[in-house]
């Protein structure tokens, strides 16, 4: 379908394939489409209620000979309608099918959309709009390239005036009172497959290259879930053996309940899509990869078939393009390739994302029944990394020179806590750490005159460190200047001397640390710090250094 590019324009095909990431191969029977779902997390508590309505449009024939006729859009729509209307499966309250020529004109489709809009909608209602036919790109009134759906009466030379602008279709859906809106577009807009581009657009695309090409619809849709029969850059295909668009065939198949992977009794939009995606990919031997994009994730309340009978198994999923091709491993076992979702047994599960033998991310999560966890959000935290680390520290603090340790104050065993904010300053280049440590001990001074003198000593240090940090895998290094307020006290309870002596200073220093990450959250760190100060001893001021060495256990969040 998208495929029937005129043989006299091979450069268009090349341009579409290479530069424009258009729908893939140019051959009869290929198609493109997308599905969009509205989500509202605030209403998820009562998410699975409401009526289901569908508007299915299949356009086989076109008035303008520039658009080649297609074979199965009508049948696709009818087949999908049948399963959606089936009380044992979709249970849709209403299913409107537009396949006849008089119904698939621009005016006819707009009228059907207006009728849909006029219905009294409950926010919990599900609405599915499915369109199968040609798509194209054309300039709008402002001169910008827009996507258009080709209606039966759309003229190749006047797409803007006679086609159905995608933006208009989206806006029509936005006006519906339902918050669970699904848009399936079995079209593409790249000049291949079901798409045919006007010469002026082809010329512009050639000049502007792919970067200017409007991104896939799903990436422009806010708070939407988009299911596509083929990925951006691939062709959707019809298949005579199946008698359908391939993706639609398996999508319809999914709604009979077999796609209910989490066994909650219902088939959600993403479950149906994942089922159709896997089987389409297998059936086409990898040439067509249905895709899905979710820009608002965390739940999928759009049920297309069945009814919830029990809390489903927990699911993890990702439909993010950036995770495409990654393999999800659960407890070390392959659970499937992304994009997609999998249902897992509840409990602690070790999830990992692998690609090419490399581990991108790994974490242990607690999965509860009915829960849906988006890998994207978990990975986002991993990629950006936890910003804060709280740590418990154990270490020693003391004078750097042996003489001072021997005659003034011995090393003090310190315990403390710290907080470190990663990338807090200078455009996330510098970390800021605050630490507080205190300690005490009972040791002895060793004086040349005085001998061994027992002393009780205490120290409190409050420091602020600013500096960069780097990470290489699990290994991290941080360093930077610091300022510390240091309070020290030594007490003598002797026969002839019962006295406390105190010293307080605020002085700059330097810190350096090496850390080793244990999983995503926990980190071990060894830190050293230097602090210079002037310390009055016996009436004379000594310039001395303090040194500290710490071992820390930290939690990142």
């Amino acid at each position, binding site marked *: 379908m998208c495929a029937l590019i005129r043989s006299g324009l091979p450069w268009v095909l090349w341009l579409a394939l290479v530069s424009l990431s258009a729908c893939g191969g140019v051959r009869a029977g290929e198609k493109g489409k997308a599905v969009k779902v509205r989500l509202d997390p605030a209403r998820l508590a009562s998410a699975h209620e409401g009526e289901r309505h569908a508007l299915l449009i299949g356009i086989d024939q076109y008035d303008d000979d520039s658009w080649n006729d297609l074979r199965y859009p009508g049948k696709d729509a009818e087949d999908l309608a049948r399963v959606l209307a089936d009380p044992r499966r979709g249970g849709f309250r209403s299913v409107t099918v537009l396949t006849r020529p008089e119904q698939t004109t621009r005016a006819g489709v707009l009228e059907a959309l207006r009728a849909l809009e006029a219905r009294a909608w409950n926010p919990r209602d599900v609405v599915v709009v499915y369109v199968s036919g040609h798509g194209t790109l054309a300039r709008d009134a402002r001169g910008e390239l827009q996507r258009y759906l080709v209606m039966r009466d759309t003229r190749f030379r006047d797409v803007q005036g006679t086609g159905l602008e995608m933006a208009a279709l989206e806006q029509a859906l936005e006006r519906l009172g339902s918050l669970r809106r699904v848009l399936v577009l079995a079209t593409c807009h790249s000049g291949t497959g079901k798409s045919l581009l006007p010469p002026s657009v082809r010329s512009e695309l050639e000049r502007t290259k792919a970067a200017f090409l409007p991104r896939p619809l799903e990436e422009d849709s806010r708070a939407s879930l988009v299911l596509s029969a083929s990925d951006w850059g691939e062709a959707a295909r019809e298949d005579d053996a199946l008698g359908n668009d391939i993706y639609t065939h398996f999508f319809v198949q999914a709604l009979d309940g077999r796609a209910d992977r989490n066994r909650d009794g219902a088939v959600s939009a993403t479950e149906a899509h994942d089922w159709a995606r896997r089987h389409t990919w297998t059936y086409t031997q990898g040439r067509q990869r249905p895709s899905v994009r979710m820009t608002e994730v965390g739940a999928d309340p759009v049920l297309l078939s069945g009814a919830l009978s029990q809390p489903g198994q927990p699911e993890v999923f990702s439909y993010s393009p950036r995770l495409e091709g990654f393999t999800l491993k659960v407890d070390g076992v392959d659970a499937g390739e992304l994009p997609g979702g999998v249902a897992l047994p509840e409990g602690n599960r070790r999830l990992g994302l692998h690609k090419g033998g490399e581990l991108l991310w790994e974490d242990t999560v607690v999965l509860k029944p009915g829960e849906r966890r988006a890998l994207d959000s978990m990975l986002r935290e991993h990629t950006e990394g936890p910003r804060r680390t709280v740590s418990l520290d154990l270490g020693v603090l003391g004078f750097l020179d042996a003489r001072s340790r021997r*005659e*003034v*104050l011995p090393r003090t065993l310190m315990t403390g806590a710290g907080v470190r904010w990663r990338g807090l*300053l*200078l455009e996330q*280049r510098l970390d*800021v750490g605050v630490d507080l440590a205190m300690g005490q001990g009972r040791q002895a*001074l060793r*004086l*040349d*005159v*005085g*001998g*061994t*003198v027992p002393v009780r000593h205490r120290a409190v240090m409050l420091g*602020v460190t*600013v500096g960069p940090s780097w990470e290489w895998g699990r290994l991290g290094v941080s360093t930077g*200047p610091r*300022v510390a*307020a240091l309070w020290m006290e*030594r007490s*003598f309870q*002797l*026969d*002839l*001397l019962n*006295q406390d*002596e*105190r*010293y*307080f*200073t*605020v*002085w*700059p220093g330097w810190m350096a640390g090496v850390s080793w990450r244990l999983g995503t959250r926990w980190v071990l760190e060894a830190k050293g710090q230097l602090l210079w*100060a*002037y*310390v*009055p*001893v*016996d*009436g004379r001021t000594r310039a001395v250094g303090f040194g500290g060495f710490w071992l820390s256990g930290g939690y990142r969040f």
Partner: protein
Amino acid sequence: MRAPRQPWLLGMALLAVTGACGGFNNGPLGEGSVRGRILDADVDVAWVSVFGESELMTGVSSDGRFELEGVPARTVELFVLASRTRAARVQVVPRGARIIDVGDIDAPPGAFITVQLRSDDGSVPEEGEVEVEDTPFDDLPVDPATGELRVGPLPAGCYVLEVDAKEHAQKEEQVCVREGEERRLEVVLSRGDDDDGDDD
């Protein structure tokens, strides 16, 4: 990197110049006290001093107890004069800012050195004096008639005797004595400059 203008830099700078207060003083840790008891002490004459620190000296109580304060907290020798005939030297290691007890000191019979002072012309010098260095035996006058002085009791050991007289050169003699020994020492002073005519 850009020049940071964050307020925290100012804060750090202010903290850095805050400086310090307080400090440590080890002075009181350099001295200690030594206490003990002298057996059969003659309260009228008994005293305890630190050898080499003759200004550190104390008497004894009626039961012979003593406490010597301000003793350097290093190895020292106590010079103990128990009676008119008995004396002892006791090595102790005082501890800083603490009191150590050396226990009972049973001083043995001391040695006596009888100094016979003469001028090189055979006469008895005027205002002759003897000092046992590092001990409280200081500025002991020589009998102007006989030129003799009996110094003691001294614990067994070696001493430096410094002998001086008017219009005579000072002279030092090292003498080692044993317990209970009576020793006679003849010292001949040469007429000449009286170094300082003082009693050092």
